[in-house]
């Protein structure tokens, strides 16, 4: 085996992923070849450097948080079911949507050909007029048919006028996306009613008719991604704010097919109103799990809250040695030892203990505000050091900083209680 062959297999060599014979061959080569030996040593060292990277502990509340989300999802299957309908129900809805759009397209655009026909007829008439002047004999007779045809054309238009005039009911659909959204949002106050009073809703007439279409269509839009939750929020939020009751998927199928029929011009789209409230209930329920905050695990999530504190302390609790070692226990043992604990500290220890308990329960840092007389601040800090590690202590960065020592008012002290870093020494095996 030559050097380049050996070097190309050094990784496997170090991983013991070679047969005995090859290992022996390479070992012999390495003993003899210093260049390859250096390569092998460097490679082994690189592997070792990665190997000895220390193992870290996940946040103490990791499992709790994960399970909280899991249980939340487990408890609301109906919301997801409503959103991600089983396929057998979805296809009819897709079909309905497609038919809807095509019907609308036909009716809306029907107007144009008719108008064009009208114009053509008129221009022909004008031309014939011209011809007439040139040729008097054909005039009158020619005119009448032309006129008739024009009138009949007009009559045709008239009969289809009801159709076209009702088209504006659906015309809002043709507007840009923004307008569509406005359509949804503006009738919302009108639609924010219990599903039971369908009569009132019916009286709302045309604009709301457009609104139910879009949520439904948009709902069917993300149908392709059943699994990805991230596609859900935008269309669902469109229908937010509307109130309504629940509906079974089968009911929905029936309604959707009925919807197609009722949208044929001439019939007001009554039955759709009951559907929108359903969409709304889904969106309300669904938007909660979807809005679940992502960064809940960040240990330093206690962010830029406006604190009206004169002084801020950040405490890192020491890890519990016993199960429920409370502040009181520590306090008593300390008292026995040092007798340096002041009455002021005793006064506040229950607040501190409460914060500690809350922090352990929620896994989040807790903030408490205490009032400490200026002169006792240092002693208070010494007392705190007995039960927790003071990570930082700072006077608030305000104008009053200079005047702090002058005023005789007690200090407003903000104390942030942090959970202990779990098992810092030693951490390795559990």
């Amino acid at each position: 085996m030559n050097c380049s062959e050996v070097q190309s297999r050094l990784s496997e060599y170090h991983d013991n992923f070679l047969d005995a014979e090859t290992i022996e061959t390479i070992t012999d080569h390495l003993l003899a070849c210093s260049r390859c030996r250096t390569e092998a040593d460097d490679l082994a060292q690189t592997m070792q450097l990665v190997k000895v990277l220390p193992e870290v502990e996940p946040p103490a509340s990791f499992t709790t948080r994960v399970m909280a989300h899991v249980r939340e999802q487990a408890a609301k299957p109906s919301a997801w079911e409503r959103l991600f309908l089983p396929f057998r129900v979805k296809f009819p809805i897709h079909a309905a949507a497609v038919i809807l759009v095509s019907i609308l397209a036909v009716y809306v655009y029907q107007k144009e050909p008719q108008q064009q026909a009208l114009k053509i007829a008129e221009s022909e008439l004008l031309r014939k007029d011209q011809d007439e002047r040139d040729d008097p004999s054909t005039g009158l007779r020619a005119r009448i048919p032309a006129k008739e045809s024009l009138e009949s054309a007009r009559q045709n238009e008239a009969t289809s006028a009801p159709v076209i005039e009702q088209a504006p009911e659906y015309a809002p659909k043709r507007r840009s996306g923004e307008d569509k959204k406005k359509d949804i949002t503006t009738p919302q106050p009108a639609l924010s009613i219990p599903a039971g009073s369908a009569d009132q809703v019916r009286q709302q007439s045309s604009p709301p008719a457009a609104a139910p279409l879009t949520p439904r269509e948009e709902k069917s839009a993300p149908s392709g991604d059943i699994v990805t939750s991230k596609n859900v929020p935008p269309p669902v939020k469109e229908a937010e704010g509307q109130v309504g009751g629940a509906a079974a998927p089968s009911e929905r199928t029936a309604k959707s097919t009925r919807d197609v029929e009722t949208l044929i011009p001439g019939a007001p789209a009554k039955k759709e109103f009951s559907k929108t409230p359903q969409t709304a209930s889904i969106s309300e329920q669904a938007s909660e799990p979807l809005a679940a905050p992502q960064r809940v695990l960040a240990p330093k999530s206690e962010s830029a809250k406006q604190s009206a504190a004169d002084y801020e302390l950040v405490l890192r609790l020491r890890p519990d040695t016993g199960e429920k070692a409370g502040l009181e226990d520590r306090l008593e043992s300390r008292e026995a030892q040092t007798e340096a604990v002041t009455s002021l500290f005793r006064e506040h220890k229950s607040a501190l203990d409460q914060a500690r308990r809350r922090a352990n329960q929620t896994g989040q840092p807790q903030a408490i505000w205490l009032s400490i007389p200026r002169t006792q601040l240092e002693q208070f800090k010494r007392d705190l050091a007995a039960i927790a590690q003071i990570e930082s202590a700072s006077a608030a960065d305000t104008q009053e900083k200079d005047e702090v020592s002058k005023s005789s008012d007690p200090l407003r002290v903000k104390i942030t209680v942090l959970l202990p870093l779990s098992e810092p020494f030693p951490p390795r095996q559990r």
Partner: protein
Amino acid sequence: MQPPSNQSEPMVPDAISDGECVQRLQKGDTDAFEVLVRRHQKTIFNLVYRMLGDYDDAAEIAQEVFLSAYRSIAQFRGDANFSTWLYRIAINHASTRRKSLAKAKERRVPLDSTDPVDHRHPNPLDAVMQKEIRYRVQSALNTLDPDEATIILLRDLQDVPYDEVAKMLDVPVGTVKSRLHRARQTLKAKLTPFFGERNLP
């Protein structure tokens, strides 16, 4: 140890296997998932942590990994190892995040507050050197291609066997070998200037 399948076992973490947990979970027993989380959280967290170089990001992504696993548990078939399947989800999530982080900002190197002190070197000077070394290694890892970093971490950090790595990355074993070798060489080139001739413990 496999408990008899007809009896319902108590949720003692050590007694119940991954496969059993998944079966229960697929039947609707949410508590079974907690066993899985507790069992795998450390390894998954550490893999993600070393791939991202940041504790907070790791916490966020690791949580997403488990939630993603929960949501798609119905698609997990018993033919693969649950651990392998979970690793695959973790690799996907962490790689995606790593790529977007690389674009967004310079990735931080983990600071010493979360890295525990190795008690084999109680000497303070050694401790300092140790931190320096870890800093350098993680920095170098951060600059590798995501695929290279992933494969090194799987093999060298977590001792995943070659064939399992192949399943996780959905490539043949031969590819694992060559990719691993190249990745280690790249890392070696980055680290040798600092560690050239020294003999590390």
